């Protein structure tokens, strides 16, 4: 656990970047710092490993005051990932990854073995081990950056906009893999972003900062989307928060209709019962493929999207084996969404 106690940072030029910050980052979880540019996210993050020294207040990592430790020793026990990876261009990929084990005095053989394993973990072919950073794409460099931060298996990781310098497709892929990795490793992570979508996607807890280093709200993504504390958070979370909030609601309680005719169209199944296409006079051109399905474990956001994009405005539910077992026409979905807001 990381605890900020009355943390204040005033730079020599008088700028107050963080003012009286009290915050707890639970162990084994991802806490995202999000907020507009210049609101003190990076400063707060860098105070954890003493890259920035607080003016007053205390920061505890697992109960120990970071200000009482030797900064270099402290930092070797905390993973650190930055926006442009910051790889060492003169060292090969494997040597980059082995940086902290090297500082900790591990043997060459041990370092290399650990680094190779980590490269695989972050999804890089081990053939890349002896390349130099300039021979990698931006996304690959960022993976090496993550592997390097993990190399000494630190319990805590600090990540400053780790995925913002890559294009959206690669970013999405890196985010997915990051979540998979975290589900295996369970690190205590502080992650800075200015992108609320990334915060919602990655955060177990989100801390929304406002200018001057004040906290506007701390909560789960769902709490933030459903109950923004004030206008600032509401604005920051964005116009489509209602729609995005649906990603946290399960489709399990959604009523479905038995397979049959909807809107002048019929669902065609293959031999094993999987949906193939819609057919009938209600479909333009007489027939259209079923492009997506959901299961009871998916979110209402997916169901809504499926219903909106279906040629007959109907989402198709399937069971674990992919066999169609129910239909949700969009007016049923609307009724369900309305009902869940109604007073009991």
């Amino acid at each position: 656990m990381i605890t900020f106690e009355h943390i204040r940072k005033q730079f020599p030029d008088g700028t107050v970047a963080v003012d009286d910050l009290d915050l707890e980052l639970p162990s084994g979880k991802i806490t995202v710092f999000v907020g507009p540019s210049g609101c003190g996210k990076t400063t707060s993050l860098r105070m954890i490993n003493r890259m920035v020294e607080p003016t007053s207040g205390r920061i505890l990592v697992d109960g120990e005051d970071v200000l009482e430790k030797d900064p270099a020793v402290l930092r070797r026990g905390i993973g650190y990932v930055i926006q442009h990876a910051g790889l060492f261009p003169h060292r090969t990929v494997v040597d980059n990854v082995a940086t902290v084990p090297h500082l900790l005095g591990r043997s060459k053989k041990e370092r290399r073995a650990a680094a190779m394993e980590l490269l695989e973990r972050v999804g890089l072919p081990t053939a890349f081990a002896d390349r130099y950073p300039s021979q990698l794409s931006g996304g690959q460099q960022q993976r090496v950056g993550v592997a390097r931060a993990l190399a000494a298996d630190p319990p805590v990781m600090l990540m400053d906009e780790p995925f913002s310098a890559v294009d959206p497709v690669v970013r999405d892929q890196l985010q997915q893999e990051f979540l998979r990795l975290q589900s295996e490793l369970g690190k205590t992570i502080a992650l800075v972003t200015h992108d609320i979508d990334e915060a919602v996607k990655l955060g177990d807890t989100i801390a929304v900062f406002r200018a001057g280093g004040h906290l506007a709200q701390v909560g789960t993504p769902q709490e933030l989307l459903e109950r923004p504390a004030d206008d600032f958070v509401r604005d920051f979370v964005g116009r489509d928060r209602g729609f995005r909030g649906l990603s946290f609601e399960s489709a399990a309680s959604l009523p479905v209709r038995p397979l049959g005719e909807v809107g002048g169209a019929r669902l065609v199944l293959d031999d094993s019962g999987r949906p193939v296409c819609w057919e009938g006079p209600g479909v333009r051109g007489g027939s259209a493929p079923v492009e997506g399905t959901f299961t009871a474990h998916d979110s209402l956001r997916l169901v809504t999207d499926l219903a909106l994009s279906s040629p007959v405005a109907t989402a198709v539910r399937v069971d674990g084996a992919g066999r169609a077992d129910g239909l949700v026409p969009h007016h049923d979905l609307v009724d369900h969404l309305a009902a869940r807001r109604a007073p009991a």
Partner: protein
Amino acid sequence: MGDDTPYLLDGTHWSGPTGIPHLLLAHLGYTGVALLCGIAIALPVGLYIGHTGRGSFLAINAGNAGRSLPTLGLLMLMVTLMGLGFLPVLIALTVLVIPPILTTTYAGLRNVDRSAVDAAVGMGMRPWQVLWRVEVPMALPVMLGGLRSAALQVVATATVAASVGLSGLGRLLIDGLSVNDYGRVVAGAVVVAVLAIVLDLGLGLVQRYVVSPGVSGRGLRRRGARASAERLDPDLL
């Protein structure tokens, strides 16, 4: 005199205390000692200023001031103050070495990718480790560029030693001029030029060997932009 054999092809010029090998060795000696002294002064200062960012005005101004000092004038001043000998020559040549080493060391370090340095500090390197494991290896091409240009200048300028009675290839120029033996003057100029070329090629080989392929890009199949080190041409500093 009076014979037509070119100076360099006359065997008698290749032996004895005024023979070319002897002059060449003395010349190399002046050059080497001046380079070592210049490096001993400029390198630590350049590393300190480049690493900390403190006192950069010193690096810039020392560079400009040093470059505009006429070596011959400085040498005469030194001789006037301390008499003949090797020391005034050494001082004059060392003053020549300091600016290129100082400015390229400083500029090389300052131009190291800040995010690499930030990552190095954030991973727990101590300042000394950041300097030697990250900053210097990345700045090396620029720093060696400074060394090469310093070496070229000193090799050419070390001829002034002869003007205050010392040895070196300058003897061929000074003595040749004093007896109107232009063959000897030309021979001196040619030998100095060849020496400069050989020295530069040698340092080029050293550079090839000590700079990481990840920085120089040598022998790599590259993707993306050219390495940051190649952005800085030492001759433009």
